[in-house]
């Protein structure tokens, strides 16, 4: 559904952000696009959305080239950006003038999501807080029913109950034909929503695995003994260690996203080798 081949891109000619980047994202999955600040997550989403043009390489989203920005291409995804500005109009007017551009938009679903976020559908968009505006955009993006939904740091600005509601709503909105990409550096916020992890570091995809595969190969546990040769990465917590270890005994453990992310960044070759 999204295929990137040999992507080269840089904001400056002599400084490349992406060099021969390859990535394939399939429908029916929720991808967590993780990376540190400045790793290129937003730029990658912009490339897929046709907001930035590659220096070379191919990008296809639903068999369309983003650079052409054709109406069919633009209607096939919705992007919830990290930073946004809303017009000084009411929410109802916003729906009236924006929804007709998305053939799959379902107004009932929009109001359902709004009520789940405990938001009133009345009033002007400009009178809402940043977090509330974000909830409106998330609700709109989900109700647009586009085959691809891309969100950039969607939990930024959301309070704790809203983050929890976000996870619940996203999980309920997943369906076979849809592809969700959630780009974030707050990895804990997307625990329980995603089913695949893509890690971007220095403009390269350094990890791209399903959580099923991660659970199969790795185990997340609290250990005291550091001598275990299966320990790939550890973090000290008081008298114990939170560790990522080789799953040699086919144990089942809950994937600790923060630990997984840190292990991929710090001990990249060790962790990646487990998947070869």
């Amino acid at each position, binding site marked *: 559904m999204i295929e990137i081949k040999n992507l080269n891109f840089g904001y400056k000619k002599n400084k490349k952000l992406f060099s021969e980047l390859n990535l394939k994202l399939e429908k029916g999955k929720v991808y967590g696009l993780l990376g540190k600040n400045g790793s290129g997550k937003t730029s990658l989403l912009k490339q897929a959305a*046709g907001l930035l043009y590659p220096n070379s390489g191919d990008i296809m989203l*639903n068999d369309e080239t983003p650079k052409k*920005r054709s*109406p069919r291409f633009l209607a096939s995804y919705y992007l919830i950006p990290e930073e*946004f500005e809303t017009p000084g109009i009411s929410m109802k007017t916003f729906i009236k003038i924006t929804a007709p551009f998305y053939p799959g938009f379902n107004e009932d679903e929009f109001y359902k999501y709004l009520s789940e976020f405990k938001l009133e559908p009345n009033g002007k968009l400009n009178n809402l807080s940043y977090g509330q505006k974000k909830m409106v955009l998330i609700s709109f993006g989900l109700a647009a029913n586009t085959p691809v939904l891309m969100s950039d740091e969607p939990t930024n600005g959301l309070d704790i109950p809203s983050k929890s509601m976000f996870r619940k709503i996203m999980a309920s909105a997943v369906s076979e034909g849809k592809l969700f990409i959630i780009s974030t550096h707050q990895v804990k916020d997307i625990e329980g929503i995603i089913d695949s992890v893509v890690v971007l570091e220095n403009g390269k995809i350094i990890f791209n695995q399903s959580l099923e595969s991660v659970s199969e190969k790795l185990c997340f546990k609290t250990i005291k003994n550091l001598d275990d040769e299966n320990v790939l990465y550890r973090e000290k917590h008081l008298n114990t260690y939170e560790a990522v270890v080789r799953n040699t005994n086919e144990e089942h453990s809950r994937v600790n996203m923060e630990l997984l992310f840190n292990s991929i960044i710090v001990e990249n070759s060790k962790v990646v080798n487990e998947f070869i």
Partner: protein
Amino acid sequence: MDNIQSFSIKRILLLMQKTAYENAKLVLIGLATVFGFFSVFLFFNGLNDGDAWGKMHTFYVVGFIVSGFFISGMAFTNLRTKEKTMSYLTLPASSLEKFISELLLTTVGFAVIYTVIFYIYNFAVYLIGTPFNLEVNFIDLSDHWVIEGFMYYVILQSIFLAGAATFRKAPLFFTIFTVFIAGIVIMIFVMIISLGFKEYLESSDIVNFQFDGSDYDIEADIENHFLVRFPKFMFYYLTAPIFWLVTYLKLKEKEV
């Protein structure tokens, strides 16, 4: 998704509706400023001889061009910030549709709204002026002033539209500044060319060139001369299409 056409009149109308809703306040403020200025001018003129009350067509054309350039300079308001640009560029409509919708709004759309408001204003001026024996005329849309005014507006407006698509910050100011600089450059260029063709020009029947400026004479058939007809043709028939093309390409190639 498969039934989404690459070009749709309906989407252009939707884009126009969206822009109108989002910018209604700005347009009304602009028009209120222009009509407010007219009212102040008419008030003081009425205290004197009141001759301006009988020249409503002049007010119409001047107001149309001034507020029209203001509106056109404010076109593509969704390209003013990074955040708005992202939202605008990802809206499912082609660059051509987005361009056409802005062009129609700032030409035909603006002309209709301005004319309707002006007629109402004209009528109000008539009602106020009559008891004071001030002669008030009504604008006639078939008047050559109005038709030529609209023609010049469409031509020059294309430059402001291109400016609005090019400059992110203060497009109105930067467009006027760029036109001013371009004007100086063109003047210098024409002067250089004139000097280069001095002998030809002196011998031709177009202009009796005297470079001391004492005997500058334009011949009667100047209008038919190539050196006059060519720039005129360029101005009347090529300015608008060229700047429309520039606007469209700017929009199409826009990245954020």
